[in-house]
């Protein structure tokens, strides 16, 4: 959870001083809008995670958005075949920055037990992935732990990261050619 204590803050009586970076990052980490790219068995386990028993919306993930335009976190749950590769790439590229990718399940992370001619052996071949959740399918607690890792990433990300050199290098590695210059707004 977004505890205030572990940010470098100056605590006064009834107020806190922190950098804008930290405040915005904290706000973002508690209101991530996921895009559930649920294809197969992990999708049903993701439904169980959203169900009332494990309830992902306790962590600010209430609103599932199925358009990449309004989502920050791409949750890829299930097998991605080669036929689905371009679709996933397009959905990822059309998401607004800053964006994160959570790869749920062995199939999404590495092709899982389906080492066959038609399955993409892991989605990190076509899109950069931030957190991998092992399991086939992972239990809802594991998925929530993956989401917690994403929240930790979001909370400690500086606002300059998306303009940094290595992020641009990462994008070019995945053949995403960026058209705007280094840091024009």
């Amino acid at each position, binding site marked *: 959870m977004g505890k205030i204590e572990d940010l470098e803050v100056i605590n006064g009586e009834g107020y806190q001083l922190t950098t804008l970076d930290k405040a915005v990052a904290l706000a973002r980490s508690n209101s991530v809008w996921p895009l559930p790219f649920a294809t197969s*068995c992990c*999708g049903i386990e993701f439904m*169980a995670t959203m*169900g009332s028993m494990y309830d992902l919306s306790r962590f600010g993930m209430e609103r599932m958005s199925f358009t990449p335009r309004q989502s920050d976190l791409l949750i890829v749950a299930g*097998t991605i*075949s080669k036929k689905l590769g371009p679709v996933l790439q397009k959905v990822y590229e059309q998401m607004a920055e800053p964006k994160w990718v959570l790869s749920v399940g062995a199939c999404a992370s590495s092709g899982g037990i389906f080492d*066959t001619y038609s399955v993409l052996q892991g989605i990190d071949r076509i899109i950069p992935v931030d957190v991998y959740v092992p399991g086939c399918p992972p239990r809802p607690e594991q998925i929530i732990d993956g989401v917690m890792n994403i929240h930790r990433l979001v909370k400690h990300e500086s606002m300059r990261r998306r303009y940094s050199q290595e992020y641009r290098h990462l994008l070019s590695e995945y053949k995403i050619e960026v058209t705007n210059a280094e840091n024009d707004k």
Partner: protein
Amino acid sequence: MRHEKIKTTVSLADKQCMKMNSTDNLIRLSNGQVLSKETIDGDIATINFGPTHPATHGIFQNILTVDGEKILNSVQTVGYIHRAFEKLAERRPYNQITPITDRLNYCSSPINNLGWHMTVEKLLGVSVPKRVDYMRVIIMELARIADHLICDSIIGVDTGALTSFFYPFSEREKIYELYEEMCGARLTTNIGRIGGFDKDFNPVFHQKLKEFMRTFPAAFEEWNGMLERNRIFMDRTRGAGPISAERALAYGFTGPNLRAAGVDYDVRVMHPYASYEDFDFIIPVGVNGDTYDRFMVRQEEIRQSFRIIEQAYNNLPEGAFHAEVPEFFLPDKKDVYNNMEALIYHFKIIMGESEVPVGEVYHSVEGGNGELGYYLISDGGRSPYRLQFRRPCFIYYQAYPEMITGSNISDAVITLSSINVIAGELDA
């Protein structure tokens, strides 16, 4: 005078749509755009009911040609999560194919597992003791309840009743706990072994099953009462995506979708397996095969499955929980250390080298969506020579364009969730 026909710049969807059956009404414009006649003279739109879409609950694609809200034609593309199950099954030994089968219809995976075990038992010519049959019936009927719970709650979600998703899901979690007691997994269960079960029902399973049987009817009726006589739900679902009995038969429908169209075909009754003939249960049959009938047939089947579980649990016979199938059933550790055959069998099972007689067999069970069949050809080697799955979702999803042509887009959404197409089973 109808407003003057404006030259629309709409072009058809991508090459899948070009494969519409009547290619004679395509006109190629000067700028290379290909238009169908209707597009030019009417306000025909092409909407992509595509891979990532909240309403498809899975990964398949429909290119709908739409006039306003009315659907004129739908071109389907499937195979987006084709994982080559049949090729994979030719590489794995027999007892390792069970984890593949429970990823076919992952909403009710125990039915797939036990169906596969029965197929191999039929090939081996093994007859299992009565207790195993009753245990199998209990687990398969639990899986059927779980499958129908998901399908009917998704129909509720698509007609706007999101709470109708949360109520049955808590029941489904109880069924998950029962599976966990039996095999440790929630969804992809890999339950049982060829020839029976690896362990008997432990006391926690008995206690949880009794608890489930005590609380489930009330919780189910409460959820059912929300939807069944709900005015909005009935108006939305009655008459949505109808299919007649003849067309359903021609399209190879089986299971709840066929029974909703009025044909009472059920594999458990026509070819009883796992001693289903000992239980009495009725086969609910619909009248006009629309979404409301499919919903009601599934609700009634949940009640019938519950009755079967009660009968099976109340007179669960004593006896061994597995048959004498040494080449597939792991001997106990003390046998493995003491006598030679058990050690050899132990080694063979772990290395997957157990011999299987040559032959071919077709066995089918009543899955969550219809007749789930296994056509197994074995040449005696360590893995099947050819294993073909009869996947009900793949077979009846062909009828989807015919069911939605002429209806609105919102009807198409409910029809899709009411026929309960599971992507994993569709493109195995």
